[in-house]
C-alpha cells in the first residue's frame, strides 16, 4: 500500500497542532452529547445486550439470512449481485452505471464504497462520483481522505472549509466562514447535482432478511434525495449488515443515533423495498459485498467485529484516536474498530499488522459500544495472530525464560536496579528515556523483607 505503519503515521499526526485541536474539540463535543442521551435511557444495558444478540444471531446463520434477503429483494423487484471482493464489486457497479448510460453518479455516504475505493474505480471508467454528504463533499473537494467514520472532515475547521469552497465552487467569492453560509453554498451546489443525476449509489445501515427492506440512516436529507430522485439506485452493502426482521430495527434504530451523533433520533431514516414503478427509482440493484468478511467470520473472537454498526462511538472515546486522528490508521475504518476490522478484512501487511497494537487497551471503546464488541479482547487476540519481528520475539522469549526461574529473576532485578542509574537506556528502552525519567529505587523489597523476618 506504500503507507507507513501506525507508529510512524501517528508521529506525523501528533506533530500537527491544528489537527489535534480540531480532534479534541470535536470528539469532546460528541462524547458529551452521547453520554447525555445514553444516560436518559434506564434500559441502555438491556438495549445493548439486545443489539449484541441480534447481530450474533445473524452471524451464526449468515448464509440462511443472506439467501432469504436475496429472495425477498428479488421478489420486490430488485436485482441482487454477489461480490467476492472489491474488484468484483467495482466491476458490477461500473457495468450497471454504463448500462444506464450515465457518466455521473450521486452518492450518499457509505463506508462500504469507500472500503472498495469505488470512486476511484468509477473515475477510471470515466464516471464522476459526486459525494453529497456535506463532510464527504469537503473531503472530496479537498482531494483528501476521510478521517472519521461519522465526521469525515473532523480534521478541517471552518476557515479551512471556506477556502476549499471558494476554490472549488462557482459563485462563492464572498463566502464567509459562518456555518450557515457554508451549508447554503454546499446546498446550492448539491441541488444542481441531484436534479441532473440519473444514477445514485448508496450503502445501507441495515438490510432486513424477512422482507428485503433496506435502511439508510442520515442527517442531512441528501440520502433521501439520492434514494428517490434518480432512475437507477445501486446499493453496495456488506454481508454483515443483514438483520432477521423489521422488529430488530426497533433495537438498532435506538442504539445507532444515540451512539453516533448523540441524538435520540436521527433526522432522516429511509426504508425501501426493491423497485416500485412510478415511485422512486425504477431499477434497484443490491450488491452484497464479502471482501474479507467471511475470513473474519471464521475467527471465533475476531468475528465480533462484524457486529459493528459503524456508529463511531468507539472512535470518539478513544484516547489514541483523539490524538492521532483517522489517517494514521491507513484504512477507511479508523479508531478502535478499524484496529480490529482492517487486519481481518485486508489480511496481513505491515500496516495491518501494526494496527492491533495501536491501543493502550484502556477499554473505553468496549464501554460505549452499542453492540458490546469487546474490542480490547479482540485486539489482544489479533496481536497473537499478526507477524512478530524476530528481535521482539527473542526479547519476549528471553523475558519469559527469566520469569520462569526465581534465580534468573533475582539477577534481572539487580541489573534493572543498575540500569535505572543510567541517564539513557539502550535499544528499544531508549524510547522510554528520551522523554521520561526512570524511578530511582532504594533498598529492595526483598532485602527489607529478609532484614525484618
Amino acid at each position, binding site marked *: 500500500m506504500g503507507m507507513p505503519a501506525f507508529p510512524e503515521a501517528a508521529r506525523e499526526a501528533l506533530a500537527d497542532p491544528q489537527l489535534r485541536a480540531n480532534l479534541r474539540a470535536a470528539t469532546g463535543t460528541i462524547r458529551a452529547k452521547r453520554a447525555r442521551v445514553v444516560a436518559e435511557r434506564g434500559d441502555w444495558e438491556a438495549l445493548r445486550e439486545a443489539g449484541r444478540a441480534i447481530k450474533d444471531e445473524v452471524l451464526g446463520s449468515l448464509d440462511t439470512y443472506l439467501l432469504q434477503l436475496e429472495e425477498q429483494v428479488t421478489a420486490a423487484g430488485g436485482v441482487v449481485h454477489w461480490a467476492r471482493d472489491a474488484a468484483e464489486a467495482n466491476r458490477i457497479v461500473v457495468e450497471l452505471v454504463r448500462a444506464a448510460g450515465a457518466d455521473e453518479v450521486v452518492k450518499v455516504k457509505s463506508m462500504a464504497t469507500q472500503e472498495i475505493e469505488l470512486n476511484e474505480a468509477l473515475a477510471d471508467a470515466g464516471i464522476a462520483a459526486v459525494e453529497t454528504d456535506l463532510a464527504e463533499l469537503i473531503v472530496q473537494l479537498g482531494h483528501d481522505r476521510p478521517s472519521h467514520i461519522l465526521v469525515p472532515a473532523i480534521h478541517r475547521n471552518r476557515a479551512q472549509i471556506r477556502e476549499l469552497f471558494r476554490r472549488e465552487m462557482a459563485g462563492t467569492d464572498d463566502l464567509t466562514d459562518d456555518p450557515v453560509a457554508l451549508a447554503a453554498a454546499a446546498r446550492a451546489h448539491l441541488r444542481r447535482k441531484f436534479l441532473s443525476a440519473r444514477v445514485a449509489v448508496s450503502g445501507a445501515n441495515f438490510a432486513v432478511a424477512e422482507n428485503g427492506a433496506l435502511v439508510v440512516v442520515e442527517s442531512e436529507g441528501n440520502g433521501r434525495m439520492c434514494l428517490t430522485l434518480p432512475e437507477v439506485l445501486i446499493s453496495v452493502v456488506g454481508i454483515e449488515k443483514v438483520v432477521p426482521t423489521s422488529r430488530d430495527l426497533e433495537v438498532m434504530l435506538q442504539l445507532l443515533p444515540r451512539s453516533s451523533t448523540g441524538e435520540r433520533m436521527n433526522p432522516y431514516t429511509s426504508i425501501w423495498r426493491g423497485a416500485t414503478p412510478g415511485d422512486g427509482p425504477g431499477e434497484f440493484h443490491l450488491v452484497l459485498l464479502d471482501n474479507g468478511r467471511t475470513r473474519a467470520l471464521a475467527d471465533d473472537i475476531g468475528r465480533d467485529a462484524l457486529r459493528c454498526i459503524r456508529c463511531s462511538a468507539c472512535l470518539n472515546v478513544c484516547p489514541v484516536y483523539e490524538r492521532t486522528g483517522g489517517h494514521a490508521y491507513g484504512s477507511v475504518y479508523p479508531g478502535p474498530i478499524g484496529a480490529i476490522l482492517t487486519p481481518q478484512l485486508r489480511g496481513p501487511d505491515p500496516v495491518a499488522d501494526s494496527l492491533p497494537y495501536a491501543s*493502550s487497551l484502556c477499554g473505553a471503546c468496549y464501554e460505549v459500544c452499542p453492540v458490546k464488541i469487546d474490542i480490547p479482547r479482540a485486539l*489482544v487476540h489479533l496481536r*497473537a495472530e499478526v507477524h512478530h519481528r524476530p528481535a521482539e520475539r527473542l526479547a519476549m522469549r528471553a523475558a519469559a525464560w527469566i520469569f520462569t526461574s526465581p534465580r534468573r529473576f533475582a539477577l534481572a532485578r539487580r541489573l534493572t536496579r543498575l540500569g535505572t542509574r543510567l541517564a539513557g537506556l539502550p535499544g528499544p528502552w531508549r524510547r522510554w528515556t528520551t522523554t521520561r525519567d526512570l524511578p530511582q529505587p532504594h533498598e529492595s523489597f526483598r532485602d527489607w523483607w529478609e532484614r525484618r523476618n
Partner: protein
Amino acid sequence: MRVGLFLTCLNDMLFAGVGKAVVRVLERLGHEVVFPLAQTCCGQAHLNTGYRSECAPLARKFATDFAGLDHVVSPSASCVAMVREHHPALVAPGVRVPPVHEFTEFLVDVLGVTDVGAVFPHRVTYHPTCHGLRALNLGDRPTALLRAVRGLSLVDLPEATQCCGFGGTFALKNADTSVAMGTDKARHVLATDAEVLAAVDNSCLMHIGGLLSRWRAATRVLHVAEILASGD
C-alpha cells in the same frame, strides 16, 4: 487472617516502597503477611503483546507459587485483572487459580475497612487507572480509603477517566502517542496543584511520574498503599 502478597515483577524490580506499604497496612490491621519468595510475574505483558504461548508457563508458575493461600493481595489493578480474567484459560485443567484481590478492593470488600488509621497532611489527586476502573470496577473504593486519611485533602483530577497512555508495551511500541497521552494527563495533574498524584498501578505512575520528573515538576507520585501506610 493469613494473606499472601503478590508484589508483581515491576514493583519487585523498581518499587520496593509499595510492597513495604502493603505489609505495614495489613499488619497494622492485625493480619499476617506471607511473601512467597519464588514469585516472579503474572505474564500480563506477554499476553497483551501477543505472546500467549510464552505467557502460559508464567500463569502455571503463579498458580504453584501461591497455591494453598486463601487470599492473595496485590498492589496492581492490571496484574489482578490479568490473573482473574486470563489465568483460568492458561493453567492446566483442574488447577486452581489463586484468589487474587487488588489491595484497595481487599481492604474495603474483604476486610470491610475504609479508615486504616493513616495520617497524610497533603493535597492529593487520584488517577483511576484503566484496569482499576474498567476491568475491576473499583469504583470509589480507593477514594473512600483516601478520604478517610487524616489531614489529606483530595482534589478532583480533570478528565480523570481518560487513559494515561502507559498501556504496557504500548509505551514503547507507540512511544509518541503514549507520551502525547501522558503529557495531557500530567498537565491535568499539574492543574490541580496537588502535591501528590496517587493511583493503584505503579506502571501508570511510572509513566506519568517519569514525565513530571523530566519536567522538574514538584508533584510526586505515590501508590495509594504508600499513603495508607503513612503516619505510623
